[in-house]
């Protein structure tokens, strides 16, 4: 036996040979580990991002920053999109510092969940004064700070603007006699939608009758939102009522008024097939999605185009916004100056922004960077359209979007009203729809208010 060999036949280990062997192995491995050369220096700055595209771009830019800070070690880590906010939230809630990066990117739908309690207890560093002292609040589009602002203080640097356009199938448009210049108002768009509709086979656009992604872009385009700047619930105001009143008939299945439909997923192979089959002639497309179309729907190369959102009467806004990312510096970060320099390097360096735009098609929220030639590039997939310039033209008009820790709850409730409204419309038509929606919105908004009122902080 090995244990006998190690301990000698005369001196038996108290618990027998197996534990002796385990002990010997653990000691040996411990000694071996201890003898390893620890040449890797602990990182001075740990940065988490959840997006592969961002990660690739940052890794490409990193050597330049390292050159400026040769004595600093920057560790950029790609963390799962679902895992990142949960890990960070858990660490903040428990007051831990071990599993907290110095800098991290947070997706807009998760941002609000970090803004709870007293301002000085938020897990991120308050960058309001730093931004103002360096004049960056003027350099970045103001509306993009709103999702990352809590009680008047800014906790995140916006990564993007995400203006919204409609991606359309040029070939199908020509075949069906549709002209972009005739679809500048929602009224004309709906009329065209009714003409080209083939129930179960073709719809002019993708609007969901149960999810709120597209509905939210319309609500924002009309100047509404789920919350106001102070975190008060606003999705039962007149704008929300009017938006739903307009939207519900368009998506109510098998109704004369229907012009739009949806699949269970707006992404991936299913959407690719739907676009190729001309099931949807247009889709709501923020800048990030324009890249997805190019990657996923190769068959339609040269046949796609982008047009501004049609407008509502008395409201000239031709765009909205969908999605977003913020960069936050955590309170536990030991070298805030280094973190701030790194944040500015990633988010404000014009040359790098232009290069990153070429790779991601995501417009940075820094208008002075849009003068770079990259933003005038013509894209073959979009039939030679200079989509960067088109998005940039709309970007200054992107509406503000306020968040709250109760964002998901409010979104869910708003979706419930949509489903109830569609049900009501399918059963009773437009009769009494306004009152029904008003009542439902008020009731659901009050439920969210009750939840908010429970928070004593």
């Amino acid at each position, binding site marked *: 036996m090995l244990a006998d060999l190690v301990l000698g036949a*005369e*001196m*038996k*280990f*108290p*618990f027998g040979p197996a534990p002796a062997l385990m002990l010997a192995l653990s000691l040996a491995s411990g000694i071996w580990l201890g003898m390893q050369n620890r040449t890797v220096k602990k990182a001075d700055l740990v940065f988490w991002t959840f997006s592969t595209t961002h990660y690739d771009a940052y890794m490409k830019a990193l050597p330049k920053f390292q050159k400026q800070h040769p004595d600093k070690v920057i560790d950029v880590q790609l963390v799962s999109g*679902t895992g990142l*906010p*949960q890990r960070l*939230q*858990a660490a*903040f*809630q*428990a*007051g831990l510092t071990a599993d907290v990066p110095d800098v991290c990117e947070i997706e807009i739908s*998760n941002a609000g*969940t*970090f803004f*709870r*309690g*007293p301002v000085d*207890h938020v*897990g991120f560093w308050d960058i309001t004064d730093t931004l103002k002292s360096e004049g960056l609040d003027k350099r970045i589009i103001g509306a993009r700070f709103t999702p990352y602002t809590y009680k008047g203080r800014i906790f995140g640097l916006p990564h993007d603007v995400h203006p919204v356009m409609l991606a359309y199938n040029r070939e199908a448009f020509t075949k069906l006699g549709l002209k972009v210049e005739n679809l500048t108002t929602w009224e004309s768009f709906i009329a065209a939608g009714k003409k080209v509709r083939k129930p*179960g086979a073709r719809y002019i656009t993708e609007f*969901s*009758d*149960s*999810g709120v992604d597209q509905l939210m872009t319309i609500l924002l385009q009309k100047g509404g939102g789920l919350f106001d700047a102070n975190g008060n619930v606003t999705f039962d105001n007149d704008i929300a009522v009017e938006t739903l009143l307009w939207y519900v008939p368009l998506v109510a299945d098998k109704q004369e008024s229907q012009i739009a*439909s*949806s*699949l*269970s*997923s707006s992404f991936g*192979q*299913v959407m690719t*097939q*739907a676009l190729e089959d001309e*099931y949807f002639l247009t889709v709501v497309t923020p800048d990030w999605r324009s890249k997805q179309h190019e990657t996923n729907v190769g068959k339609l190369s040269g046949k796609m185009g982008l047009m501004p959102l049609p407008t509502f009467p008395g409201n000239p806004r031709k765009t909205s916004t969908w999605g977003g990312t913020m960069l936050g510096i955590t309170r536990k970060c030991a070298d805030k100056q280094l973190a701030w320099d790194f944040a500015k390097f990633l988010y404000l360096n014009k040359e790098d922004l232009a290069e990153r735009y070429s790779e991601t098609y995501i417009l940075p929220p820094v208008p002075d960077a849009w003068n770079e030639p990259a933003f005038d590039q013509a894209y073959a997939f979009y039939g030679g359209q200079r989509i960067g310039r088109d998005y940039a033209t709309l970007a200054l008009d992107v509406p503000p979007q306020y968040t709250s*820790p*109760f964002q*998901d*709850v409010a979104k*869910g409730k708003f*979706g*419930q009203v949509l*489903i*109830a409204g569609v049900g009501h419309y399918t059963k009773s038509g437009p009769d009494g729809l306004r009152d029904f929606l008003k009542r439902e919105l008020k009731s659901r908004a009050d*439920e969210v208010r009750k*939840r908010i009122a*429970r*928070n*004593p*902080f």
Partner: protein
Amino acid sequence: MKPNGSYRVGGGAAPYIFVAPFILLFLVFSVYPIVQSLRLAFYATSGPQDWSPVGLRNFSFLLQDPDFHKAVTNTLTYTVATVLLQLPLSLGVALLLSQKWLKGQNLFRLIFFSPHLLGQVFVGVLFAVLFQPKYGLVNHAYAAMTMNPANITTKWLGDPATVMPALVLTSLWMYVGFNMIYFLAALQGVDQELHEAALVDGAGTLARFRAVTLPAIWPVCQFVLVTSTMGSLQLFELPYLLLGNTSGPDNAGLTIVMYLYQNGFSSGDLGYASAVGWTLAVGMLVISLAQLRLSGGMGKE
């Protein structure tokens, strides 16, 4: 040192030393979190610095919270539907696969059991694609079976009315074969002499199943009933992935554990999430005890 040369730990301490690592880990990773979560249930919190005692308010809010009611209704509906469908189906498949005349029994057993090997995450993603309107295989089969081409656009995961049937179907696909294994093992333990005696007495197939097979496998039925119920009440991953990290339209796929997760990690309301968790734990205990009592599993032979 003992005369034979081995060292011994005196005073009978050895057993304690052996169990000490478990006790230590159990205290740190089980007892402490359980106690802490019970404490949390009586507080409103916002990070480690903001704790405010709220007495029973977290629990009283549960009683008037429509989302919690929805989560409870969904979870119970799922539990009843899966248990009522899953157990007879599992037993039926096990009975079928234990027939001597059936060729390729092992292959069929593997086929029925294999969905469980995939895991809830994979199954969730897979069925999310299968249930797609227009392009999903389920709808193609549904339209063909009903001879109604319009059914191809059925939004299984987009319509509140069809989310639960879709969840139950997915769960059946995954778990029927898993529970079948328990029943197969139990069926192998049934005394064949009793079967032969019943046969000599002129008992038919159904009578033999009722009088011989069922009593013999009853403890396994109880076990499967309780574990299936517990598993169903703790449902989380399957709907979460099937519905694209959401609770589905009109919260049709919201389960109690999902609601706990949403409150704890999306809204950051750990106190309320703890109250949800403890309510679920107590509910599960009551349901399990009731099941065991009703099925005669509490000490009765």
